[in-house]
């Protein structure tokens, strides 16, 4: 496949191809609908014969995330992908990685819950992703792609952010973005890092004591409370820097907007259609699409809260991000939620009706 070629593929396939191209060293995963094409594509592409990337089907999501922990602890670019129930199983490992400050990529092509739920798309893992999920005070850098192109682009971006801050990063997608096919230009090939490059960039990595340097130890354990508090404070300080520097969002038709839709991922795609229909009917609506769900664009939404008459949080869940929007605008403007549950994706016309109600 030539490098700049435009091709048509599923979001899940784009994740796999992008991983191979961005110097990923290892993928560890377990099949679950609707993301199995990630592992299937990697298995078909056989990157171990070309870039040397390791691909392994693990015995469970628990094993997958711990393989990622092990690989990340050696400074390698490693990743896993799963869907909601599998991501729940991974929460232990994610918490350990946050505690041990390990960079890695976790992709959640989410589906409707709770429990086994449905295999249809959902954004109901917002809380799990940005408010914790696992135990302890930690945060996950979270990118929310809204197109197949962004599925491809965010793989490298997530790795870059993960390594920059020594923190796990998540791509929070959903079954719609994972399963749909769109045009995509895959990122250019970037070689996997050499052993020397890893030693230089990750002096903390447990690669063996080359040159009999001091042993490196990767652990999240510290039984002395004073020390553990210091570890926590250091991690919290890192989170404040991420919140300061890494907020990403897209603005759409906001200049004259009197009403604001805030939506991420596939809901933001629906929102653009809603805006087109609403504007035909003379309602000036705009969109703020958070690209990073954590760090969340509180500041920008706060500013927009002073410009518009009302905000609609459009989510494919029972109303989760709406809480962060209310925090952002400090109750200075009405904030409503609209969404559908159980794997049903809201149709543009029903959202337009909600917008109309807000204008009354």
């Amino acid at each position, binding site marked *: 496949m030539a490098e700049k070629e435009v091709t048509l593929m599923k979001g899940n396939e784009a994740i796999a191809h992008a991983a191979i191209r961005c110097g990923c060293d290892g993928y560890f995963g377990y099949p679950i609908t609707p993301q199995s094409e990630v592992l299937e594509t990697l298995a078909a592409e056989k990157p171990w014969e070309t870039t040397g990337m390791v691909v392994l089907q693990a015995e469970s999501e628990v094993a997958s995330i711990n393989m990622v922990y092990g690989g990340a602890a050696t400074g390698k670019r490693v990743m896993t992908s799963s869907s909601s129930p599998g991501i729940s199983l991974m929460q232990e490992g994610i918490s350990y990685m946050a505690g041990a400050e390990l960079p890695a990529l976790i992709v959640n092509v989410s589906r409707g819950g709770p429990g086994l739920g449905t*295999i249809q798309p959902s954004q109901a893992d917002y809380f799990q992703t940005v408010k914790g999920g696992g135990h302890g005070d930690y945060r996950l850098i979270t990118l929310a792609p809204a197109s197949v192109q962004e599925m491809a682009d965010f793989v490298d971006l997530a790795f870059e952010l993960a390594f920059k801050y020594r923190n796990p990063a998540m791509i929070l997608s959903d079954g719609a973005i994972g399963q749909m096919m769109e045009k995509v230009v895959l990122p250019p090939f970037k070689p996997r890092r050499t052993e020397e490059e890893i030693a230089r960039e990750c002096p903390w990595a447990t690669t063996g004591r080359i040159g009999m340097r001091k042993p490196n130890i990767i652990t999240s354990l510290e039984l002395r409370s004073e020390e553990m508090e210091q570890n926590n404070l250091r991690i919290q300080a890192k989170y404040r820097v991420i919140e300061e520097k890494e907020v990403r969002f897209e603005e759409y038709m906001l200049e004259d907007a009197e009403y604001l839709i805030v939506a991420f991922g596939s809901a933001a*795609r629906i929102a653009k*259609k809603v805006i087109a229909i609403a504007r035909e009917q003379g309602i000036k609506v705009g969109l703020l699409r958070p690209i990073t769900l954590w760090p969340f664009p509180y500041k920008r939404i706060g500013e927009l809260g002073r410009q518009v008459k009302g905000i609609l949080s459009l989510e494919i869940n029972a109303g989760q991000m709406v809480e962060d929007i209310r925090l952002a605008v400090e109750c200075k403007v009405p904030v409503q939620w609209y969404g559908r549950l159980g794997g049903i994706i809201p149709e543009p016309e029903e959202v337009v009706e909600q917008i109309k109600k807000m204008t009354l």
Partner: protein
Amino acid sequence: MTHEIIISGFGGQGVLSMGKILAYSGLMEDKEVTWMPAYGPEQRGGTANVTVIVSDEPVSSPILSSYDTAIVLNQPSLEKFESKVKKGGTLIYDGYGINVPPTRKDIHVYRIDAMDKAAEMNMIKVFNMIVLGGFLKIHPIVSIEGVLKALRKTLPERHHHLIPMNEEAIRLGMDIIREQ
């Protein structure tokens, strides 16, 4: 130009691959395309459907509640999607196994007896391409050349000898589609 299409039928009728070839053909002609399947166990024998959007502009919502064209290949699909065709839009259905034909008067209804024709001509493998041909006759949103280019691109080399049969199927579909 934006054309929003739903293709629906039984699993195994080639609904998803027909959508894929249509989307790929759009890509070949530098259009924006989105292919959004109803995925899951439906693929394995129940009803399957896929939304294909071909546009000159970036595609917003991949999920729609109304369509410019509905291509329905069985009775349940007809029942589900007849009402979702936009006023003035197009409904194409294969007559095979349809007991209750469409009734709407505010849309253009076309019938294509692709299943019967495919069986008669021993072309069951390319049944979906006959249907695609019928659609392209009504709405030439991509050219036959674009479709053939897409086939060359998506079919593995060892199946390239089947491309002439696919072309024949498309032309056959163009011939046999009839407005009701």
